[in-house]
């Protein structure tokens, strides 16, 4: 049983204290599987986690093979996220089934990974994650990206090209603006979340697909990146076998990504576009009528890295066109066509690879639809939030002697909701205020 009750708090304290003891150690490794393969500290690839550095982007482009040849036990890793959740107003009935109405410890997720080379000579490598959800008490496959990467020249320019099998649109991305590796960096499964999300943020694990990508250095400082994938929803049996259930989507799901990156020294600026189209079947029954969704987004990332600090700024905007023919016919939406817009602005600062702060503004705005958003008094999904995350990484510059590849992040995250489900006050028609959902989430992310 993954739930950690208040009565088990002393064991958690002991674990945290032990972690603190282990922090007094020596030479650095970090992201467990990749660090063990490359012998590099996690700071080589990450500004905190999961944001990628230039080295991390090249490592991913090249198929996760650098420093490795074939699978090794070092390519296996474990990760766990343990935290304490406090919400401003208690939630009658509990934060989740079998959880108290407020102030709960939880082991939110525990994952096992394979990360690294499968056959470096042909450029074959993988990132494979399977996760136990400690809140829902379920086990499922998680982010997966198996890729074959090759290097060639095109128009006398170096070109990395590759092929990928993956299960999440955006999981292949090199920047931290798409939802797969973007905000929220530390989701709290016991906290409240917005009532709607675009498809780009909703398909992780529910689909599988094949794709191809290319990254060409058009100058020594400029990189052009293009990727095209085609997904399909998991068949019923496979979906249940992999722990994600059946989420039927009619037909193929095309996904595309374009980005330009300009680099100077350790700094970089990225500007990109992203798109996806799918036909989810709201009834959940294969071959029933489907809706039609189109997502189109733009994003940008600016990253400064020096020997003492790292600063990154990210912006992402996605517009979703929703043609709700099936939902409307079933009487579950007021409009045949709705839309949803999301904007996310993030600024992160990491000092000495140890002390980090991240501030994020997120805003979701959608059509007024009393049936689609029946929990909202004004029928709107509009939800805005400010998230402040303060982190301490004890091992970015030096892991413990007994586990030099281990990594950890102590975090405190505060989420403030100026608006929630359409309003700042009385959003549900029963007197609830948006700030009732304000959440404090603190704990440790541990990987080894």
């Amino acid at each position, binding site marked *: 049983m993954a739930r950690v009750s208040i009565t088990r708090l002393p064991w958690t304290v002991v674990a945290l204290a032990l972690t603190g003891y282990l922090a007094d150690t020596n030479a650095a490794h970090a992201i467990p599987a990749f660090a063990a393969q490359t*012998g590099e500290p996690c700071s080589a690839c990450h500004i905190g986690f999961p944001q990628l550095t230039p080295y991390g982007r090249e490592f991913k482009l090249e198929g996760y*093979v650098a420093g490795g040849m074939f699978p090794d036990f070092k390519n296996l890793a474990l990760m766990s996220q343990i935290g304490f959740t406090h919400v401003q107003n208690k939630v009658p009935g509990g934060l989740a089934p079998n959880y108290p109405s407020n102030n709960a410890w939880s082991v939110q997720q525990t994952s096992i990974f394979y990360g690294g080379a499968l056959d470096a000579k042909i450029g074959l490598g993988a990132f494979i994650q399977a996760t136990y959800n400690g809140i829902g008490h379920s086990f499922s496959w998680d982010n997966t990206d198996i890729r074959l990467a090759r*290097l060639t020249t095109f128009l006398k*320019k170096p070109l990395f090209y590759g092929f990928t099998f993956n299960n999440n649109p955006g999981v292949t991305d090199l920047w931290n603006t798409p939802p797969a590796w973007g905000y929220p960096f530390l989701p709290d499964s016991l906290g409240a979340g917005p009532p709607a999300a675009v498809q780009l943020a909703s398909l992780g694990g529910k689909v599988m697909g094949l794709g191809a990508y290319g990254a060409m250095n058009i100058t020594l400082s400029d990189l052009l990146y293009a990727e095209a994938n085609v997904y399909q929803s998991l068949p019923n049996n496979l979906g249940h076998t992999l722990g994600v259930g059946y989420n039927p989507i009619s037909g193929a799901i095309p996904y595309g990504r374009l980005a330009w990156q300009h680099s100077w020294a350790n700094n970089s600026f990225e500007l990109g576009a992203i798109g996806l189209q799918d036909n989810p079947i709201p009834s959940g029954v294969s071959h029933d009528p489907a809706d039609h969704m189109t997502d189109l987004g733009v994003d940008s990332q600016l990253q400064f890295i020096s020997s003492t600090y790292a600063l990154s700024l990210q912006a992402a905007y996605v517009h979703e066109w929703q043609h709700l023919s099936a939902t409307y016919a079933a009487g579950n939406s007021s409009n045949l066509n709705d839309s949803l817009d999301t904007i996310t602005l993030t600024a992160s600062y990491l000092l000495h690879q140890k002390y980090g702060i991240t501030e994020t503004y997120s805003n979701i705005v959608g059509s007024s639809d009393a049936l689609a958003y029946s929990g909202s008094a004004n029928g709107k999904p509009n939800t805005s939030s400010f998230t402040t995350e303060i982190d301490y990484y004890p091992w970015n510059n030096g892991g413990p002697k007994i586990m030099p590849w281990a990594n950890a992040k102590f975090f405190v995250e505060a989420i403030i909701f100026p608006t929630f489900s359409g309003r700042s006050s009385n959003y549900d028609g029963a007197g609830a205020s948006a700030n009732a959902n304000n959440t404090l989430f603190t704990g440790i992310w541990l990987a080894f």
Partner: protein
Amino acid sequence: MTSMSKLFGLATAMLMLAGASSALAAGDATKGAGVFQSQCAMCHGVTPGANGIGPSLAGIYGKPAASMAAGYEYSAALKGAKLVWDDASLDKFLAAPQSYVPGTKMPYAGLPDAGDRADVIAYLATLTGK
């Protein structure tokens, strides 16, 4: 020391100088420094002991690969490649590191322009290990 051994030593020294100067002659070290700054400096230092994500490249020119940067953990692939960093090996490595030494820790698309590579090699040849 016999006159024969003196002659041998002189010839060896002249050959070494000729080898070192071949890179300098082929490439422009000043231009190479610029390419190095934009392509290499984010991971590599140029003074002894200045290891970053990659090893310090001070004094590597003409030396066995994976031998110079004390304290840096080289990849098994590079250690096992038994290379000497001369003009030819550096040229191939800089063109496509992962193709030349599969398993190297250096994920880099490479320098496609032979002139850029020659300039960087000329610059590396100017870096002393002391």
